[in-house]
């Protein structure tokens, strides 16, 4: 469903990703691991159209989408739940969700989608008119994911959803993530938390300094010594 | 004080340029000499503003207050009390310095953000204009007419023409040198930290209040002195020119067009834009009122779009490109 071919991308001409090739099939949950500046967020931002690739191709559902604008990527079904949640602090939960579904494709069934998301996250339903900036970290993460779901994503990319959350919330959120493929979504999960990711994904890629160091099933990645060195810089 | 300052002071290029400039009255007609004299006034004014606005990053629109005090107060003191203009200049400069320090103190004491500071200084400038235009002692709306300039140096008269030109040249050079000095002294370093991140500067122990006041006082005193010299050159103290926020806006424009925060930026901006404005006005001013300023505005827009980082950066890049074409 998604293929990155030899992607080179970076900021101001300086490459962060050097020759990255990745594949996702529909319905998978794939993990993207790596230490802090390995290039994980850059890769996601490239997929979202926020960073233009220096070279390489991005194929989504067979189409080359490298030239699509950020708006068009969302319309195509590529949706990002950004690192740090980035909810709109002075808008209510309801308004945040409405904005999630603002793209033309999703807008048609926004009310129904809203009901579905609120059923998935009852806590949000309780706080519908509360300003998003006043929510707790875990609630904001729920909102961010709910917002992503409102966009009727085909590929949902989550950037560090466990960051700053209590273990209870992390467990809750990841239970939800596990259920998403059944709803027809494909998930790309970016995480620093190695063990957590290995438990919830089928396959993983480990990035090290802009290149794929290890790839394979969760078990393969867990046992590969290069994974540890990629994280510890050894 | 960094090396660069002393190198500038002893630079043959600098002195050569100054000497050449000083010889200009011998070859220029009085019309062009006048334009150049005006340009130098604004070089001085823009450079004085640069200390606060460019180096310290405090966009103050109160500059017209200092220029106005320097011009109107010294004129009023001369005309109403017979105070020698040299003394009047010193009194005005002291008052301006005090006012500047007060404004800087207010900024610090009330923790004004950048935008509030801009607008509060603008409000002060408007108030100053209203007060001067309504106060007969300072000339009211009709301004003050100084006695004719007969060149008597002890009476703060420079004779118009070449004499005034040399005075303005000295002031302009002095203001630019002050800029160079500050940039190469610890003060410049502290101002830059305040400009880049005031809270961080404070956190690492920089005495923000002291340096803000210092910058403002230097800037105000320079502006005031130039104001006095300027009004003497014009012989007529026009409040709508000298105490209006418009003059501040012009100065800010010269500084930003040339290169904000750089020592020679404001000078470059003034030396380019003032002659442009005057020559346009001379050639087109009578044909169709407004045409010269219209073109001036178009030039400003074009220059802005073409050089978003100021003309000085553009010239530097061109210079570097010319010297090392292979790079």
């Amino acid at each position, binding site marked *: 469903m998604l293929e990155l071919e030899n992607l080179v991308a970076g900021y101001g001409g300086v490459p962060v990703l050097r020759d990255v090739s990745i594949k996702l099939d529909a319905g998978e949950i794939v993990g993207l691991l790596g230490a802090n500046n390995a290039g994980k967020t850059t890769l996601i931002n490239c997929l979202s159209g926020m960073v233009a690739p220096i070279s390489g191709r991005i194929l989504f559902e067979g189409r080359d989408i490298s030239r699509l604008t950020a708006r068009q990527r969302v319309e195509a079904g590529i949706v990002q739940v950004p690192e740090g949640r980035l909810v709109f602090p002075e808008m209510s939960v309801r308004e945040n969700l409405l904005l999630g579904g603002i793209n033309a494709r999703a807008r048609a069934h926004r009310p129904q989608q809203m009901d579905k998301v609120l059923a998935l996250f009852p806590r949000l339903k309780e706080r519908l008119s509360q300003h998003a900036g006043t929510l707790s970290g875990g609630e904001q993460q729920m909102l961010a994911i709910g917002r992503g779901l409102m966009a009727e994503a085909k590929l949902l990319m989550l950037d560090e959803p466990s960051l700053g959350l209590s273990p209870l919330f992390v467990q809750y959120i990841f239970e939800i993530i596990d259920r998403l493929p059944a709803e027809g979504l494909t998930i790309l999960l970016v995480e620093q938390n190695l063990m957590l990711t290995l438990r919830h994904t089928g396959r993983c890629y480990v990035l090290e300094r802009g290149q794929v160091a290890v790839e394979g099933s969760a078990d393969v990645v867990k046992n590969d010594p290069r994974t540890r060195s990629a994280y510890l810089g050894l | 004080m960094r090396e660069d300052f002393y190198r500038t002071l002893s630079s043959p290029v600098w002195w050569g340029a100054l000497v050449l400039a000083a010889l200009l009255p011998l070859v220029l007609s009085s019309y062009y000499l006048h334009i150049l004299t005006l340009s130098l006034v604004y070089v001085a004014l823009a450079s004085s503003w640069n200390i606060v606005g460019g180096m310290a990053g405090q966009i103050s629109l109160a500059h017209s207050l200092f220029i106005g005090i320097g011009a109107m107060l010294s004129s009023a003191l001369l005309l109403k009390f017979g105070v020698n203009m040299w003394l009047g200049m010193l009194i005005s400069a002291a008052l301006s310095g005090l006012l500047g320090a007060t404004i800087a103190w207010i900024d610090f004491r009330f923790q004004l953000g950048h935008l509030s500071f801009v607008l509060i200084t603008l409000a002060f400038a408007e108030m100053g204009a209203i007060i001067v235009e309504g106060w007969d002692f300072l000339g009211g709306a009709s301004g003050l007419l100084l006695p004719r300039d007969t060149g008597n140096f002890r009476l703060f008269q420079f004779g118009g023409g070449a004499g005034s030109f040399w005075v303005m040249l000295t002031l302009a050079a002095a203001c630019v040198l002050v800029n160079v000095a500050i940039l190469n002294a610890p003060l410049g370093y502290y101002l830059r930290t305040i400009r880049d991140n005031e809270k961080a500067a404070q956190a690492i122990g920089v005495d923000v209040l002291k340096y803000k006041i210092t910058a403002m006082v230097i800037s105000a005193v320079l502006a005031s002195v130039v104001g006095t010299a300027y009004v003497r050159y014009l012989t007529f103290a026009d409040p709508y020119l000298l105490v209006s926020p418009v003059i501040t806006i012009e100065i800010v*424009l010269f500084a930003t067009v040339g290169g904000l925060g750089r020592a020679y930026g404001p000078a470059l901006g003034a030396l380019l834009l003032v002659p442009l404005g005057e020559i346009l006005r001379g050639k087109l001013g009578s044909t169709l009122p407004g045409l010269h300023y219209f073109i001036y505005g178009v030039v400003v*827009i074009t220059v802005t779009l073409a050089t978003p980082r100021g003309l000085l950066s553009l010239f530097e890049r061109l210079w570097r490109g010319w010297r090392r074409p292979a790079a």
Partner: protein
Amino acid sequence: MSELYQALAQGLLIGSTYGLLALGMGLVYGVSGVVNFSHGDFISLGMFMCLALYSAFSLDPYVSVLITVPAMTAIGAVVYIFLIRPMVGHQFLMVVQLTLGLSLVLQNGILMIFGGQPARTPSVVESKLFILGDVVLQVPHVIAFVVSFLLAGGLYVMLRSTDFGRSIRAVHQNAHAAALMGINVGRVQVLTFALGIGILALAAALLLPGTPIQPAQGLRYTVITLLVVVLGGMTNFVGIMLGGLIIGIAEAFGTIYLEGVLGLLMPYIIFVAIMLFRPQGLTWKSRQ
């Protein structure tokens, strides 16, 4: 006592239009970080367009808006796309510099076409008076008040209840996140600026009847609008309208109660007084 009501009423009337002027600037600032120093000159442009339409077709300013608002909205979009957008990533003062150049162009373009003499644009309601108890008000001012409030109300509803309004607020609060929602941030910025200029066209027509106009007046409106916007907290809707009313009332009180210089100083004194003790403006955010 009736003087008090007169001052209050007049202040409220003009203040609501000041608020409207500032809303346009606040919206643009929130979405693009741009402060347009030719703001007042666009108001001038709107006024002179009405004058021209009157001279050519005897159109009353209240009718001319049907032409000037769409025209100025289009002009706004063009100005933003070609002049302002290229500057948006750079130093804040660069946009100021550009808009200062634009101010000169507008002001002097108007001067070249219309000449420098103050001109009046007649309107059917110009000399009619509206009497409320002891208070005598000019009908054009009352109309300006009502329309300004209605338009401000309309803007408020638009921002709260339409997707476009929500996009504007989203771009203001977090442009990156807004882009991730599929919002075309660039388009929102253009449309907001164009909307702001369109509002100015309407406000110009409201301010026009009974007022002699001249090309150099732009700066005065720009300064008033800046005062109101900063007083209102830059992007706080209610704060800005409140700021407009405060400045309007301060102006009215100054002219009616105080003689000469002190009267003229009132709005500025009030502004400085409020800002010193509340530098963040009339928002409910705590000082950060």
